């Protein structure tokens, strides 16, 4: 179970209190009614699936109720940081201090 820091409550809380809400920093276009099919696909359907750092949204749904952003390593599940919604995307180096994960995981028994 993940341990997640809510940037509003400034508390480390159990994953039970949170809900994952998908990738962060995807901005709804102001002129959404006019955008092309390609632009809509990019906005609504296409998501990154990186092996490494992912910028994602969480909601402290059973706590303060606020949405916030987090940087998590998708293999180790380590959180590099969490920050409030609306704050700029942090400029983190691609190579992170997170330890190298398992090269491959076997299929579940």
């Amino acid at each position, binding site marked *: *179970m*993940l*341990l997640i820091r809510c940037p509003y409550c400034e508390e480390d809380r*159990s994953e039970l209190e949170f*809900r994952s*809400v998908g990738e962060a920093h995807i901005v*709804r276009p102001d002129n*959404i*009614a006019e*955008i092309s*099919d390609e632009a*809509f696909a990019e906005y*609504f359907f296409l998501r990154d699936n990186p092996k490494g750092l992912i910028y994602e*949204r969480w*909601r402290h*749904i059973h706590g303060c*109720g*606020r*949405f916030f952003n987090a940087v998590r390593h998708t*293999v*180790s*599940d*380590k959180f590099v940081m969490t920050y409030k*919604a*609306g704050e700029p995307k942090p400029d983190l180096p691609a190579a992170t201090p*997170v*330890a*190298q*994960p*398992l*090269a*491959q*995981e*076997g*299929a*579940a*028994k």
Partner: protein
Amino acid sequence: MSGANRIPGAGRLTPAKTARFTFDGRPYTALEGDTVASALLANGVHLMGRSFKYHRPRGVVSAGPEEPNALIDVQRDAARRQPNVRATVQEVFDGVTIASQNRYPSLSFDVGSINNLLSPFFAAGFYYKTFMWPKKAWKHLYEPQIRAAAGLGVSPDQADPDHYAGRYAHCDVLVAGAGVAGLSAALAAAKTGASVILCDEQPEVGGALHFDTSVMIDGKPGFDWAQSVAAELAAMENVTVLTRTTAFGYYEHNFVGLVERVTDHLAKPDRRLPRERLWQVRAKQVVIATGAIERHMVFSNNDRPGILLASAARTYLNHFGVAVGRNVGVYTANDSAYEAAFDLKRAGVSIAAIVDCRQQPGAAVLAEASRLGIEVLTGHSVIDTAGKLRVSSMTVARNGGGSSRTMRIDALITSSGWTPSVHLFSQSRGKVAYDAESQRFLPGTYVQECISVGACNGTNGLQATIDEAIAAGRDRALKGGFTGGDTPAISGTNAFEWTGGMAGAAEGAGPDTTVKAFIDFQNDVCAKDIRLAVREGMHSIEHIKRFTTNGMATDQGKLSNIHGLAIAAEALGREIPKVGLTTFRAPYTPVTFGTLINHSRGDLFDPARKTPMHAFEEAKGAIFEDVGNWKRAWYYPRAGEDMHKAVDRECVTVRQSAGIFDASTLGKIEVVGPDAAKFLNLLYTNGWDTLKPGRCRYGIMLREDGFIYDDGVVGRMAEDRFHVTTTTGGAARVMHHMEDYLQTEFPHLDVWLTSATEQWAVIAVQGPKAREIIAPLVEGIDLSNEAFPHMSVAEGKICGVPTRLFRMSFTGELGFEVNVPADYGQAVMEAIWARAEPMGACMYGTETMHVLRAEKGYIIVGQDTDGTVTPDDASLGWAIGKKKPDFVGIRGLKRSDLVAEGRKQLVGLLTKDPKEVLEEGAQIVANPNEPVPMTMLGHVTSSYWSENCGRSIAMALVAGGKARLGQTLYVPMADRTIAVEVSEMVFFDKEGGRIHG
């Protein structure tokens, strides 16, 4: 006497403290502190089980949690019975009933052992190759037969009467394992002042000190030192010592699951105690001190009862005072087995010979063997054994061939080396690294805040282990900012440092394809099976595992994985690390469902939500249905009525006079603020600027992709205040959806959202007499058509309590929905009912609600829509604000597929036979004579008998449906085909006059 094989003066149990138990009906006497395995061995019983596939007779192999063979059924009383318990773990208590498993009619004579003779037909992977033809035989012949033959123990047939506890804990340092390493690390960490939890799966701390009596630490015998350190730790306020507690799973962010067995060892447990306790520990740092597990030797017929691990024999002797035999053979590739032989010899057991497949064992152990007069055959192997229900001889030959020699024995102890227990490390997502020199997988790269120490880290030597553990324990506490205390100084000595070890098949396993040299005892996987898997093309260890079932038994390959891997690597001609290790997964050892479920059972399994009027409805005879977690009144049968009769009556009564319905479960959200209308403009397809305070509107909410997400009536209470309703099932997600947009996309809007679902009780009063029923109860609201037309809302009082009164209808009748604060719900409903009943009205439930709304063609989101339906598909295009510049879903609606011809659209269906009621979910075709697979046009979404229409009615999603009005389509069923006509969706009061009555 607690068994003929008990050696006087040996072991740590007290001879006077006995406990009686039965095994397969025979009474035996044990000592307090015995495991079932040690007590049976003391009584000369080695035969404890049968293997899974071949039903081979099996004895106990180990003295610990890795046991693959001795799985037993433990019964305390009629209701308390558990199968598949390891005899090496279960402690004997007075009166316990033990039974063997997987045998019929008895353990010594088992008809299932015919499988052993048929084994040429049961090669690895036979499941995947046989039982293929004829196809139909699988379902009716093969699967039932296999299921009947498979499985080990028998599940209990009664509910578990015990209770289980759960606890959350936080600590600075969690130490898993309380052997030399774990105790040293825990002491070093605890002395800094850090909070420490130390756990160990055994009844007492000590780990390998249970058997290794040559160890002296700080001047004490090792085991005694361990107990004194545990006592010192337990006395410290910052330390929790948990025995009989297994760290079974290591999850994200140093979250570790422990299971504490609280009462399974007690003869008369206090019933207030939980049977087991689940600890969910969040540790800042974890020290893994889980030791190592000895491996057996792989050779022909190495599975007979009486053949066991050398360290197990040492444990039985040195801890339990039990000799595993009187004339014991030793087969080893590792020095550690020598020490077992020495201990047995000193206890008066004769050692037939130490057979060592190495040419050069350690010099120190060779010298000691010589001094004790034990024959050592180096460069030799045990190539076979004999003995039906217990080993009676071993056949020994020089490696490379030559004459063989058979020695009579009554037990054979083996060791091929030690496998570091990297399970928890691996579960923590650490990456193991292969150490070629010692042929071991060791902790390599760490991912979480943990460190491995001692044998599980591949550390050799007692003092090196102690020093490493002390340094690690202190270092982990320092990482948490603790700097106090001294570094403990602990010094230990032991008799021998061990050398040697091998992985894979020994000489006696041969290249032969018929020799049964077992690597996985429980699943009957032999060396030849791994080779067969490679020949059949399995190159990944994960495929080999599944093809052979190696490591898939309840012991999860604790003995077998490394052997299987080494044999596979040899057969593939690749190095071991290139073949790879299968993934370790939690739990380390089996965990009961009771512990995992914990308090979440019975009423606490899934909480029931009841409306404020639940008791009233119950008294009125309501039958309830589950809607999500809600209990909703489904229908109100009167004497002699079944559901259909009750619903028919309720439906007719509502339209003839009136009905009362509990609508409290509807989601309710209060949307407040200067920008409330702007916000709703963005969240709903409809426009809200034109809605005047005191008026309501049916709103449709889309997702960004243009599909219907939810619907409901929204009332404008004031310029800046809306009372939004949602579907019952959608309440939580709609709130989440709204908050998401408000907080992250439209944060500039000045709006507040409050869930009010449980604040309002809602009583729907529907039917021609609805106004007459409530009018005398209402204060401050003019209920006339002119002042309060359909789709109005007003605040006032009813029965003297505040109400938000809606004039709205989900039945097509004149109707009101009375919202009152939840606590007044039942009183107001009683008052309304007191007026309604004499007027011939009825209570009605959700089933009648469904029928009445279907008669009017009102959709239910989630029943008539499925996440791929647009407003236009549902004939609700009118609800889209055409002039709005933006709303969620505006772009999605323009997608080419959403505006294409031939989309599935909601239409009505009328069966040609008006008595025929379609099945919901039934498929619809145009040509019933088309060969299967037929072209399916859609499916029935809602279907009911309508007493008001005097016929069946249905709604369906049909491709190009609106263009098919009047067409005849077909609904093919298993036994017949039903002809239907496509119709409008409104079946009753098509003009819609009644709603304005």
